[in-house]
């Protein structure tokens, strides 16, 4: 297997980096990492001095993914998407990317989205796909809970190279779509 390149940031910093990416800015500013060893290990955590107050703040590069894939509850026939519950960083992840794909639990006639809802117009999305249970093993708020049993069962599979390859070959590469994957992997709906 190819070793992964790891670059460690804090949660607040990653949020800011996606926000900067979505804003078309080159970097994110954060009152963060004070005294922490993380900047010593990550050359992409630097600092900037506020031109007005002289305060030293953390500066990190914006994130602009080539592709973002998120899961949401609903889309309408035009491909407008509504996200409810914990909205996290979904909008920033989509708007910072060059292209974004959204899988949804269902396609409805009318989203009935409140004016200040977390709503993604179809014209910022490359594709919207109806994939019920697409968040599995995580949950989709209002549709189904997290499959903790699967998460526990996955741990030993992911720790063993051969088990992992066999599982992927049989249940993911060997199935036509998400529904068939779930059936093959014995995931209860």
């Amino acid at each position, binding site marked *: 297997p190819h070793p992964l390149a790891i670059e460690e940031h804090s949660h*607040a910093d990653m949020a800011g980096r996606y926000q900067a990416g979505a804003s078309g800015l080159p970097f994110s500013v954060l009152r963060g990492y004070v*005294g922490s060893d993380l900047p010593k290990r990550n050359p992409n955590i630097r600092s900037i001095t506020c031109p007005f107050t002289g305060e030293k703040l953390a500066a990190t590069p914006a994130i602009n993914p080539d592709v973002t894939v998120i899961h949401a509850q609903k889309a309408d026939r035009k491909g407008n998407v509504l996200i409810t*519950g*914990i909205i996290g960083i979904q909008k920033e992840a989509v708007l910072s990317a060059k292209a974004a794909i959204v899988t949804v639990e269902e396609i409805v006639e009318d989203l009935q989205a409140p004016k200040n809802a977390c709503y993604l117009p179809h014209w910022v999305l490359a594709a919207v796909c109806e994939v019920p249970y697409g968040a599995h093993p995580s949950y989709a708020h209002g549709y*189904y*809970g997290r499959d*903790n049993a699967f998460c526990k069962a996955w741990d030993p599979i992911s720790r063993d190279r051969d088990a992992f390859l066999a599982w992927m070959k049989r249940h993911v590469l060997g199935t036509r779509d998400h529904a068939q994957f779930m059936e093959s992997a014995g995931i209860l709906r």
Partner: protein
Amino acid sequence: MNYEANEIMTIEAARRLKNGTVCFVGIGMPSAAANLARLTHAPEVVLIYESGTIGAKPDILPLSIGDGELAEHADTVVSIPEIFRYWLQGGRVDVGFLGAAQIDKFGNINTTVIGGDYAKPKVRLPGAGGAPEIASNAKEVWIIIKQTRRSFVPKLDFMTSVGHLDGGESRARSGARGAGPTAVITDLGVLAPDPVTRELTLVAIHPGITVEQAKASTGWDLKVAGTVVNTMPPTQDELETLRDLQSRTARAHGTVASE
């Protein structure tokens, strides 16, 4: 009623939270203590989780900040950029409530790696999460952590989040905001920073625990206050509420959590 060491740790931590206190809650022991407070003496405590849930009132303890249970009865749910920028960095959080794998005598904490080599650690911990920014923006920080020679270390393997830095006024000079750690609650007692040196000092011990035991469970020469008080033993209500909460949580997470 008899009780476990980690029960009185959670209960003693919960007792400190008051109605109206805005608490930024870390997952794990901080979350158990914060929700115990909400379910007993402080129903109006305001719990914030870094997933953006403000005024969260989970009926079961979340496994992660992203658990839907946190949003279900929250006052409101905002985006993650907003929770960190407006609510935390904006200075609206009274208490940042953190756990840690290692702590040093100035309340700095490590949640990143165990072992000296960052690239090849003995143990890879969950990582920073929100802690570095909670530690440097909340008005004060409480840390809840089991007290052993492996967690109370003379020197951290990795400094993830700042406490009182090198002691004295070094935190204030560093640009970190807030008072930093003002209480460290453990399974043996409670420590608080010396007002001048900022070195963690044992100020209370749980019933049945001795000062010698606390010193023996600390990886440096533990400073002890002139008078060390005893914390109150858990009441029946505190214990039953905590145990009910934990058994509800175990049942919900043990099986497939269906919505």
